């Protein structure tokens, strides 16, 4: 269990303000946030590189706030690998074990074991600068996990890699985490990593953790406009909320939306995720509470899906599968109906 309690640190350009986070043993926490939010400083403070000005860091019940990094058993992997260029891959991986003055056969056994785990056994004699980015990052991860750390800190470990390597290494991280029951804090800008790796996601901004929760919860129910913006929530509208026997009616500038997630009156933001909106050419028979007629103003190929914008007084972004898009047979200018559940209208 890792406890970060009210940790503050002012580094001038970067700050941490009263950060508190509890990470149970074996949990995988992904930290997201804009550049300069203090994510790396947070990890480096947990590692002991920086001393917090106030607050505590506890690991497995022990206060390690003022403990030297080398006595914490917390390992760190950076985006640009930080492999020691003057040492072979083998000597990079064994670096920490040699510091621990382990017996040579034990060192060899563990180096080979973790190299095998990351599929780099054949690279052990090589110099880091002769390896590809993916191989270097595997070596850097091996160098960390060979220490059997209590906490593994990953600072954008996959960001410097190309798409396919990133995908492969992401699965590898998932497998390692499952196999080793290791506590992980992982910084990323990539939302796919959030959804595929995170047990929980923490969003940071201006040195503060603004929301922590399951990825689904944070992405579907951002607790402030910043997160909604940051995680790219579409269909973000402003309106006045009026409670009306159980349901809330939100009057936006053009439409009244019905929501089941609002519990207060007054000015609110609402968001509806594009995949929660259905499109129909005929007026729907079902009695969904939010049905609006509009016109297709834009349809864009977004790779896996089609992104369609329907102007129904407000511009609604809708994502449709290719199949659904073809079945609907719509093009720009066509009149359509859009409908979505009151539960999908998220208010914050």
């Amino acid at each position, binding site marked *: 269990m890792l406890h970060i309690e009210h940790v503050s640190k002012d580094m001038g350009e970067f700050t941490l303000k009263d950060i508190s986070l509890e990470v149970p043993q074996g949990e995988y926490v992904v930290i997201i946030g804009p550049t300069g939010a203090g994510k790396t400083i947070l990890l*480096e403070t947990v*590692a*002991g*590189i920086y001393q917090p000005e106030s607050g505590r860091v506890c690991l497995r019940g022990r206060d390690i706030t003022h403990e*030297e*990094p*080398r006595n*914490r058993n*917390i*390992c*760190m992997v*950076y985006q*640009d690998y*930080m492999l*020691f*260029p*003057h040492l072979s891959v083998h000597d990079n991986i064994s*670096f*920490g074990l040699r*510091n*621990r003055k382990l017996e040579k056969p034990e060192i060899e056994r563990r180096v080979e074991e973790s190299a095998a785990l990351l599929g780099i056994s054949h690279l052990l004699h090589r110099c880091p600068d002769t390896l590809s980015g993916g191989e270097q990052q595997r070596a850097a991860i091996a*160098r960390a996990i060979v*220490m059997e750390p209590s906490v593994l800190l990953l600072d954008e470990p996959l960001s410097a890699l190309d798409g396919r390597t990133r995908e492969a290494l992401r699965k590898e991280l998932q497998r390692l985490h499952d196999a080793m029951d290791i506590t992980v804090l992982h910084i990323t800008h990539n939302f796919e990593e959030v959804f595929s790796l995170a047990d929980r996601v923490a969003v940071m901004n201006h040195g503060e953790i603004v929301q922590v929760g399951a990825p689904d919860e944070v992405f579907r129910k951002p607790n402030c406009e910043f997160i909604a913006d940051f995680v790219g929530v579409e269909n973000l509208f402003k309106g006045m909320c009026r409670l009306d026997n159980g349901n809330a009616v939100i009057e936006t500038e053009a439409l009244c939306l019905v929501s089941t997630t609002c519990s207060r009156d007054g000015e609110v933001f609402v968001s509806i995720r594009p995949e929660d909106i259905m499109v129909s050419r005929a007026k729907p028979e079902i009695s969904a509470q939010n049905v609006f007629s509009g016109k297709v103003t834009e349809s864009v190929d977004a790779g896996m899906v089609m992104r369609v914008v329907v102007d129904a007084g407000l511009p609604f972004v809708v994502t449709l599968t290719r199949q659904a898009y073809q079945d609907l047979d719509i093009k720009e200018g066509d009149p359509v109906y859009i409908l979505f559940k009151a539960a999908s209208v998220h208010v914050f």
Partner: protein
Amino acid sequence: MNVFRHPPLKVGTIAAGMILSAFILVLLFLIVSHPSPENLISSMFSPEIRFAIYLSLLTSVVSTALCIIIAVPAAYGLARYDFLGKSIVNTTLDMPLALPPLVAGVGLLLFFGTSPFGKALAEAGLVFVFTPLGIIIAQFFVNMPFMIRIMRSTFESISPRYEYVAKTLGCTDTQAVWRVTLPMAASGFFAGAVITWAKGIGEFGAALLLAGATRMVTETLPISLFLNMSCGKLNLAISAATILIAISIISLYVFERYGGSARF
């Protein structure tokens, strides 16, 4: 002439560079070719030049070692930490570069000859005025900025995150520097040492004022060149010059070849 293929700007600027390098080569050639080869060889093996070579090597190696011992930690501190007055310290450490060596020599002479500290050292047996020790101190004082500048830029080019990783892997602060940063700084270190050594061998002005120019006592290669030139022993003077030229060429080559990203 096709003005597009030979634009005046290109022709003019390249010509300037080529004329300059031709000028330098002509000078070097004139020096080396002035005496007959037999005279040059026999002068080089004369007791006086052999003494000068020996004294130059000894003083320059010792002063380079001193530079390394003091400049490497200082450069590390300046590269890694922020502290009050850092820019003043930085500028001050660069001062000897801009200062004429003769002026540095006057300062050193006053310090070791007249200050209570210098007198105390002399009483303890460390006499710097008109001795080879003075040559070492003069070389150290004038060349230390080269070592500091090269090492500072080398350390600045190495991300502190290497040390962070080393510390999470069980190193103390000092071990992290010793086992990771210093090996990574090897090429800059090597380049700095070579340049400092080569500058040390050629040091004249400050050494002249502090250690004097006494034949067979404080006679390094440049001092030998000066002494023999002033009393007309051209062969001896030129053999000293030839050795200095050879050292310059070799050290420049080593610096460019193995210096990596180190700059000063």
